[in-house]
């Protein structure tokens, strides 16, 4: 009768559900994106300031 049992949900290897794992990973990815965009803006501003020599 084993063939008639519903398939087990795919294990991710952690106690978290797949949705929860994906949610956390998405959160970290968005945070990293925000950091990278902020750094790009900062580097641009620093370059402008240093090129124009304003102190």
């Amino acid at each position: 009768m084993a063939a008639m049992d519903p398939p087990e949900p795919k294990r991710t290897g952690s106690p978290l559900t797949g949705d929860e794992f994906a949610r956390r990973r998405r959160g970290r990815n968005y945070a990293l994106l925000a950091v990278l965009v902020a750094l790009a803006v900062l580097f641009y501003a620093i370059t402008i300031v240093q090129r124009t020599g304003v102190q």
Partner: protein
Amino acid sequence: MSDLSVERTDARAFELPGELAGELGGEVRDYIALLKPRVMSLVVFTGLVGMVLAPGSLHPVLGFTAILCMAIGAGASASINMWYDRDIDAIMTRTRDRPLPRGRIEPGAALGLGVVLAVGSVTLMGLAVNLVAAALLALTIAFYVFVYTMWLKRRTPQNIVIGGAAGALPPMIGWAAVSGDVTIASLVLFAIIFMWTPPHFWALSLYRSDDYQRAGVPMMPVVAGARETKKLMLLYSLLLVPLTLAPYWLGIVGVAYAVAALLLGLGLVALALRVWRAAGDRAAKQMFAYSILYLFLLFALMMLDKTRMVVA
């Protein structure tokens, strides 16, 4: 190495309840907690005061960059500290809910984050601001990680006395970011935080001594007892008060600061006396809370007084 030295506990025993932290992945807030944002805020604030008090000027974008580098550098130190101390953090009540002992973040991820942030913050400081500030930032991170965390913390009750230098450097970094140098005035700012750290931290360790004892960290109350610690707290508080008047004698702030600093200092000494006489934890808790307010007010007053002097 003295008898006080504490060997590292077998860290593997405290790593990841399910051996799966890497797969679990931490929430973004776990990574933020890894950077000790409350400590970071004090670093940023004292660094900002150093920048305001320093002679000269700095473009706001570069000023912001300097502050950001100090904050990131502090976060990097905290992350590496939590990676190294994850074994004792798991034992102590105060720290056992941190992301690493709880297994929410993999130790390697914490170390990697710390190293990347440390290198990044020092590099950015050097390229965007100046090399003196970058060197001081590198010294701060290295001192906190290698001297305090890895060398002193588990070996001597003088851990936070000497290790306190790392927490005292941010105003010097801020000063150097603006002026590009190290002067007597910036050393005085360093000395104020350096002398403030022992009574502040010993107040905490007085009512957390069981925690430190269980973890095998030789804090002063654990090694020398509460009575001796209280005596030292009073001594450091008494030495700190005249030191806080030095910025006035050096002419970087006005008389309004000096009067306020003296009154605030007398409050600190009065609380230290109370701790010395009292038997329970209450006075130590009050001393700990007041010491944070004391340092904040002291530096806020310096900043306000300097601003007032510039406007006048």
